């Protein structure tokens, strides 16, 4: 386990706050889905907050990420505003995508979030393209692609990894191996347990990290970012983690055992980190409680913001398809 002492307390507290924000966002979103504010699919990343936060903490504001169907955490970690996120989930005009994208397509180009994605592995080539642009323009930026253990078996991952390895692009392949793709366990999706093994076939390093240890994730991503900025090319980071909730909200979860879930809940990335903050960094529980309370207030506000934001006019459905729609003649 990495030591917390090497890191400024401020930063550690920021990690904590972000992880709690993500957790709280997911729980609130799930609740609001039941309550009817959120109409669409939700894929919560509860249990995986450390990967999002650790990885994005290693990036600069100018760096970009591509995300997945389970992307709320990535966006929050990259600076996303829970208000605009919740409003998007509610399909409101004030949402990140004006209500047209929903959870699966959250994007904020200003924050360098090129988009969540409804297609497993669909966003990975995009990250490679961003990395290519950065390399061509001699910009010291990197692109980080988040994806799951299931995505590693899609052709798009493979082609993208090969291209990035070949051209030594500043791209980080960040795999959140949470042991399942929907209801199918990872071991029934690939014949290997350590997916980072595949990196060797693309000519770049593959490393494994405890995905529930936010500092470890941060440190290992920093290394990869440095490599990428130096022009040494991609790194495949495999973060071993676990999704604590269903694949989607409403998932009956018939495919896994209570023991397994309990095992992983005992390794919860937030509770564990909180404990370490208290023990290793001697943070007062009250200080952390205060953070929790602030986050709750933030999320209260986000929900209120979403509720009170206007719904789009139905005709807005016809806008935003093209930069130039030739006066509507393109429809």
């Amino acid at each position, binding site marked *: 386990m990495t030591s917390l002492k090497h890191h400024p307390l401020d930063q550690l507290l920021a990690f904590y706050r972000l992880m709690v924000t993500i957790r709280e966002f997911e729980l609130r979103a799930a609740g609001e889905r039941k309550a009817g504010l959120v109409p669409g699919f939700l894929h919560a990343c509860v249990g995986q907050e450390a990967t999002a936060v650790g990885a994005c903490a290693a990036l600069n504001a100018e760096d970009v990420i591509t995300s997945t169907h389970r992307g709320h955490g990535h966006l929050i970690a990259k600076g996303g505003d829970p208000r605009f996120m919740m409003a998007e989930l509610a399909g409101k005009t004030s949402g990140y995508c004006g209500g*047209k994208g*929903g959870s699966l397509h959250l994007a904020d180009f200003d924050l360098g979030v090129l988009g969540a994605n409804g297609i497993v592995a669909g966003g990975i080539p995009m990250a490679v393209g961003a990395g290519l642009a950065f390399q061509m323009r001699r910009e010291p930026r990197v692109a980080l692609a988040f994806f799951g253990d299931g995505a590693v078996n899609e052709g798009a991952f493979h082609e993208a990894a090969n291209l990035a390895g070949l051209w030594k692009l500043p791209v980080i392949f960040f795999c959140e191996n949470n042991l399942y793709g929907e209801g199918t366990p990872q071991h*029934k999706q690939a014949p290997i347990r350590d997916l980072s093994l595949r990196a060797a076939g693309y000519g770049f390093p593959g490393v494994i990290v405890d995905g529930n240890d936010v500092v470890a994730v941060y440190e290992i991503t920093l290394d990869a970012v440095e490599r990428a900025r130096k022009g040494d090319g991609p790194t495949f980071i495999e973060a071993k983690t676990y999704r604590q909730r269903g694949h989607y909200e409403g998932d009956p979860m018939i*495919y896994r055992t209570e023991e397994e879930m309990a095992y992983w809940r005992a390794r919860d990335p937030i509770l564990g980190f909180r404990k370490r903050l208290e023990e290793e960094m001697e943070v007062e529980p009250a200080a952390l409680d205060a953070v929790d309370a602030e986050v709750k207030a933030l999320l209260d506000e986000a929900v209120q913001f979403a509720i009170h934001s206007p719904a789009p006019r139905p005709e807005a*459905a016809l806008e935003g398809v093209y930069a130039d729609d030739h006066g509507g003649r393109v429809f």
Partner: protein
Amino acid sequence: MKREITFAQAINEAMAEEMRRDPSVFLMGEDVGVFGGVFGVSEGLLAEFGEERVRDTPISEAAIVGAGLGAALVGMRPIVEIMFADFVTVAMDQVVNQVAKARYMSGGKARVPLTIRIANGAPGAAAAQHSQSPEAWFMNVPGLKIAIPSTPADAKGLLKTAIRGDDPVLFFEHKMLYSRAGSAPEGEYLIPFGRAAVRREGEDATIIAIGGPVNAALSAAEQLARQSVSVEVIDPRTLVPLDLDALIASVRKTGRAVIVHEAHRRAGPGAEIAALLAEKAIDYLEAPILRVAAANVPIPYNPDLERFVLPTAEDIVEAVMKLIRYEI
């Protein structure tokens, strides 16, 4: 004997019956086994047929479809499930270049008894990558057959025909139909491809409705009946082959045609049907051919926007009334 079952159950039953009947039939796809299919369509099949014949696969659509083809070429009758039609894009080469053309390119020698089940249509607030209806792309790919049932009975009868046939079939299942119940025969029941069903008879206009929106067409017809407009509703059931004779016969009778589907309007299945009518039935037409279909924009997430984009019963009523009122 008829009884009420859901569309999903009808598909389940068709698969189960064919798997019992023929050991070469098997099912593979993402989460079709333990999970029973994300829409519950394959529930119980794993228990009855075991892991070998009900195969959970990795998320590798190209490999799955290609493996289905390979297995078919050496004598199996695979059923491959594509969870959302949007994902058939990642298997597009296998469907278009391999599956569809294997027979022709080999000079008519290959036998490709492969059924690809594809869940299409908008399930509601699922946004642009989980709501598509790409049937028309495949109508443009010779070598495939395309079934698109709208009732439990048709789902059962057409799927059994698909599985037993020696040609590759894309079998489109609209997600909003899965939970709809309807009567369907028990046991052996096969519906031949290329025979449209007249869902409702009428005199004043023909609605040709495809897949999911057949129900909207029927409720539109109901509303129109209250306004004394008598509408015939025809469901082609298979797009390839298409029962053009039935469509022409109806249009000949009514003189007016509205085509309804959930695919985007531009270059959707309705384009082909309209073009065929404009070629073969123009003399019978007393008014333009109208299409009621998804607007030419990606499917938005917000349900109000989505409703605005998708075809509704009101849109159909309006289109029919436009034709009724039309004067040359």
